């Protein structure tokens, strides 16, 4: 289990993490979402032992991550800008990973050769961005990680390779109980793979719940009011309201049953609850935190 409690990280006066608290259960796939500059990459770097927090705790299985090589040997990460030595091939990097990570499996490395169409002897710098990402996954997955931290993991991969990569990761989660913490802006994709989601904004976690809880906590209703009632009554606490013809679309922070009961007093002609996508939850949650799509006239 990954636990972060009140973590604070500052860069020359700028507070990147402002008391972050989150919990990633063992074996979960935890999606970390948030706007640009929210602190997602900083949080991952702190959890990797790259950055040291000013205060708060960061533990994995109860042990502090900072300067803990035994623990870090069980944690692997693929940052957005994966690093490789300039002259190295995938094979060269494999030798380094094999020497550094005790759990590195040559058997898996060879098996994964079929999944990634990369010449292992070719210098990595000569590979395309997507192929470099594949090399990163190949090596990282060969380390048999217990904890996997991914920052924009499938950025640059083609759709087939995205599915391939997620398939490998989810197989590991299912078979070995690997815990995955993934940061991405591709909410559609996270929606498919994540058990839990944490929304980070301005260095703080706004909320963290399971995807089902999130979807249960917010509802999207399509409503048709009786004749003569053209506007949504002001008593209804809509996070968002729009209208197309006579159909009003409302986003409410409550479950579907309560929302239906609330609208019943206006005798609507039609009330239909539609499940929200993660992207909609993200947008409307952050809209409440003063981060909304602004209507700017150019």
């Amino acid at each position, binding site marked *: 289990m990954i636990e972060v409690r009140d973590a604070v990280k500052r*860069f020359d006066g700028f507070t990147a993490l402002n008391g972050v608290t989150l919990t990633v259960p063992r074996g979960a796939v935890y999606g970390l979402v948030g706007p640009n500059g929210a602190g997602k990459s900083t949080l991952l770097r702190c959890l990797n032992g790259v950055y040291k927090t000013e205060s708060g705790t960061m533990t994995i299985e109860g*042990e502090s991550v900072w*300067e803990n090589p035994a*623990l870090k040997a069980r944690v692997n990460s693929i940052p957005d*800008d994966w*690093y490789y030595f300039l002259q190295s091939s995938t094979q060269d990097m494999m*030798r*380094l990973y094999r*020497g550094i*990570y005790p759990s590195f499996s040559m058997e898996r490395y060879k098996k994964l050769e079929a999944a990634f169409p990369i010449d292992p002897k070719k210098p990595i710098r000569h590979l395309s961005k997507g192929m470099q990402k594949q090399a990163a996954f190949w090596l990282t997955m060969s380390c048999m990680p217990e904890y996997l931290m991914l920052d924009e993991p499938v950025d640059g991969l083609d759709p087939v390779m995205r599915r391939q990569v997620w398939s490998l990761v989810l197989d590991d989660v299912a078979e070995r109980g690997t815990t995955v913490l993934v940061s991405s802006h591709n909410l559609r994709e996270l929606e498919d793979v994540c058990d839990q989601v944490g929304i980070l904004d301005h260095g703080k976690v706004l909320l963290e719940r399971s995807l089902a809880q999130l979807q249960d906590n917010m509802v999207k209703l399509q409503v048709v009011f009786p004749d003569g009632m053209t506007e949504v009554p002001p008593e209804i606490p809509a996070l968002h309201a729009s209208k197309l013809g006579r159909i009003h679309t409302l986003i409410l922070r409550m479950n579907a049953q309560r929302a239906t009961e609330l609208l019943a007093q206006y005798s609507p002609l039609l009330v239909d609850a539609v499940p929200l996508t993660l992207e909609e939850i993200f947008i409307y949650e952050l809209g409440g935190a003063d981060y909304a799509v602004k209507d700017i006239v150019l």
Partner: protein
Amino acid sequence: MQSKTSSFKGLFSPALFRNDLSRFWPLWALYFAAWLLAMPAVQLFELFGRNHQWMDPSDLHSNALCGVTEMASSGALIVSVAFGCLFAMALFSYLTNARAVGFTHALPVRREGLFLTHYISGAAVFLTVHAVTALLTMAVWATAGVREFWLIGIWFLSATGQMLLFYGFAVFCAMFAGQLLAIPVFYGVLNVLVYGLTYLFQSLCQLLFYGWSNSDIPMLVVWLTPAYKLSKIFQNPWIYDKLGNWSGTDWGELYSSLGAVGVYALAGVALTAAALLVYNRRRSEATGDTVAIGWARPVFRYGVGVCAALSFGQLLFTILRDAVGGYGGGAASVPGLAACMIALGLVGYFAAEMLLQKSFRVLKQSWKGGAALAAVLVLVCAGFSVDLLGIEKYVPKADDIQSLDFDIYGVNYINGNITDPETIGRFISLHQALVEEKPENDWNSDSSDYTGLRLDYTLKNGKKLSRDYGFTYESGEVREDGSVLSQMAVLMSDPVVRRADLSAQFLNDVDRLTAAEITLYQSLPYGKGETLNFDADTAQTLLDALEKDIDAGHLGADALDQDAWYANTFDNSLTFYYRVKPDPARPRRDDSASFDLQFSKHDTFLLAALEHAGVDTGSLTTNQQMNDSDGSTVMAKEAYAYTQQEGRIPDEDGSVENAAPADASVGIIGGADGPTEILVASQSATDMQES
């Protein structure tokens, strides 16, 4: 809670070590090639190359020893300075790349482990290269029959010790650098910082303090400038016999050099330990910053400002002063100097701030620091100008002085060392008069003569104090009672001072006199000479007479009066030949030496002794006479006169009847510092000189 084993694991990573060795192999190969060429290859060529065919075996042997000694000193220094920095730049370059530092610090290796692994990679390479180089050189020597293998051991120790220092120093610098190019810059600047600051401070003192001498670099400064100190080791550890053959080893020199290398090697290890401490406190996110350690940023900011003020500020002031006041420019204008220093100091300060902030817009947030720097510079200049510490006026007390080295520049130059308290007291009186009167240079006066006085006191507390005064004067001032010049003139003919000068120039070296000689000019201007030789006994008699003249205050009587000196001092110098006192530690190939003495009409005892030795002292030629009838002058004048009159040059008998039409000739009279006359004649100078 950390796992129990985590504290012990991760201090060294074999995988990273192997990775370092394979990644930077071109650098390692270059290092090996440098030593391979400098040691075994050079020795091979030296011992078996062309020299082998014609050189004496003992010379070959001697050359081999000298070659390796040179590699232990300057060779090791150059290689270590260059490769120490390159090694550190390669192995710790990841600290200057955000992606690399993110990757490396995420690895399951402690910071100490990362540091030690990278450091050991470099150390392992140079140790291996040194060992292989030593073995190959030994093999070459063994084949050639050179058996002094211990010297290769000394090279190994020297090269390794120096590499430990410079590699450790470069690693230390790398810990502060967030950008790759900052490493060699910090390394280069810090290597010479102490010496440079001392020099700049002394040159500032020289500008501001009358009489300040900046020639003394304190020993601590030398030690804190390792490249300078190490350039002086293993300078001359070999002893040669009279025939110039190698006859032994100066073990004292070898041991002291090795001691210095040992001290620096320890310093290198200490710097490495300090670098590890800094590394542990270094934040990964500082990558890309010019200075990666927080507390070092103000040091960098103000340090650059102060260095810019001291160096470029002084330079600007000197340029402006010379442009306005001519070369030398006269005394320093404190406000002008302060203005230049403040201007350039602020340029340095804000430039440093721009590098730190990575922005040109730094004025708004850092002007207060700039103002503080300017204020400090103003205070320093003001303090210096009023001689707050009493540096300029300080004259040591006679009781505090153990000895005095003096140099006096007049028409001629004397120097020596004195310990006589009474004479030292007279120098102190002169020193006191100088700081009170402060005579200056007046380069614009055509008729001024120049004199200078340098005083190097060795105090009883072991400290040294140096002062250097130079000023122009008119000849008449020498005769003014109580003046600085009259005091100097008295000192220049003082028996103790003159004896000290003579001792410094030759008496201290004399084992025994062997002969003496003097050349008399038969006629002027063509001046064919007649050399009179004296045996050892006569030479000793002449020297005794000279000492009587010294005691009587005759020698140097006209030392500051140029006209009198020219009128009274003879151009015919008296040459003493002697054997040098033997020095068992340094036998000389040739122990004979000579000393030319200039003497004057005042040296009556010597003149009498010369008369007694058979010299017609009436035929001695004074400098004035010589100048008036100087060969080139007279030749040119006469040739000019003849060609004007006859269009021909006289024959040797003076006849111009049968002389051929002349070629052209130019006679240039005088020198760079006096009136110059150019005469054109129609005979080549060579012909005239031959005649």
